[in-house]
């Protein structure tokens, strides 16, 4: 790309930027190319005349440059000291990580760790889905199938005296048979001492 092309392109960008700011593009030259009135001093007044936003940008840039230079001056010694400490602390691990065996080991460890996390997430997801699948039949089982009610009408013998008497006798006998104990627990032979010797 030739120098002329570059200037053309820059001029195009400037024109676009001017248009964006609502200014009519300057014909036959760039703002940048205009020589400043005094050296090292930005013509703020001139700029302010042109646009206040441009002025703000210029002030911000100035402030940032000043701030950076001051910060660099203050941070430089601290940065130096910190880097020295960090080197001393990481020295051992750095040595270890430099070795290919430990590098591989670390790689394997992290791979396994990530794999485990993936398995855990997968299993949790699977269980959740499985649980959801199971819930549906359980909900169905909770409601038992109602037994169809079959009404039974009493026969003519339902109030027959003989039948009723027999029913009572059978019931009584059945209960007695369930309760009776054949072993006479209170009549076990007495425990006596027959070991009489002197």
């Amino acid at each position, binding site marked *: 790309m030739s120098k002329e092309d570059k200037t053309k392109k820059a001029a195009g960008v400037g024109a676009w930027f001017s248009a964006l700011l609502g200014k009519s593009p300057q014909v036959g030259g760039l703002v940048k190319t205009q020589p400043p009135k005094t050296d090292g001093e930005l013509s703020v007044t001139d700029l302010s005349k042109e646009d206040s936003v441009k002025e703000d940008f210029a002030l911000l840039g100035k402030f940032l440059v000043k701030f950076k230079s001051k910060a660099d001056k203050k941070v430089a010694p601290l940065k130096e000291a910190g880097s020295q400490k960090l080197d001393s602390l990481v020295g051992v691990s750095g040595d270890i990580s430099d070795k290919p065996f430990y590098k591989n080991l670390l790689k394997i460890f992290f791979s396994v760790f990530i794999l485990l996390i993936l398995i855990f997430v997968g299993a949790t997801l699977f269980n959740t889905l499985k649980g959801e699948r199971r819930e549906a039949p359980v909900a169905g089982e909770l409601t038992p199938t109602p037994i169809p009610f079959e009404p039974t009408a009493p026969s003519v013998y339902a109030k027959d005296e003989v039948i009723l008497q027999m029913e009572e006798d*059978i019931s009584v006998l*059945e209960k007695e048979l369930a309760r009776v104990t054949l*072993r006479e627990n209170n009549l076990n032979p007495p425990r006596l001492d*027959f070991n*009489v010797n002197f």
Partner: protein
Amino acid sequence: MPSLVAPKILKALAFAFLFYVLCSMFYVLPVWSQEAVPAQETAFDRQYSDYQAQIKEYELKHSDYILKRSQYLRFKTLTSQEDAIDATGEMLFARADVVASYLKTLKEKLKEGEDIPADFEARITVSIDDELVWLSSHKGETATAETLKDLEGSSLESSERFSSSQNLAFYETLSAIALGKVLGYEKRTQDLFDGLKKKLDEIRSDSRDEYSFSSNKFQILDRWMFDAETRIERSKQRSVSVSTLFSQKNTKSKRTNALSLYNQTLTTLGQSQLYLKEANTFMGEVIRELKTAEK
């Protein structure tokens, strides 16, 4: 004025007291009427109480005997020997009384059992009486004992009798009582079964529409009746096997193994009891079917 108020207050108090007494009586009276009438004491109950008293008496005499014996073995004096002879004699007497009382209690219990076969009851009663006679004569022999050696011999004789023929009498009686219970239930079940069978035959022969059942219903009823009859038969088989066990010869092994025979008897009779329970359940099903109309 105060002289008029005071009698009024007194009257009110008296009325309140009377009201309270009446209310209390009405409250208490129903409780009095609900008091249970004490059951009439049977011969068995009286004999059982006597048996319990004999046991307590024996325990006292036995502890005295233990004390005197230890004193004699320690001091070996003439006085301690005489004391030991007296205490041992009294303990042997009390022990014989306990055995006699126990046998009498068993005899009373045997009498209470209504369904015990007569021949068993007679045989057991005779054996109990024999033991009572033996105990009586043995007490006489013990009374004549003068030395500790004599008393030892008397006790040994009594011990042998207790573990053989008396032992058999105990467990035979207990077995007969259990057999009597099962036979009673068997009889009642059989009576109910016969009555139900008779009623079924009546229903079967009734030709009126609303009083008769279909053949399908009768098939169900007959099946329940057949099952009930089978259970009664099985129960009878078990009770007969127990009776056979009783009629075995009075051998020495039978006398010494009386307890195991008793346990065997109880097991067999327990099976019989279960069969009877089932038979009653099946008869209950027959009744339920009879009371239900056909669809």
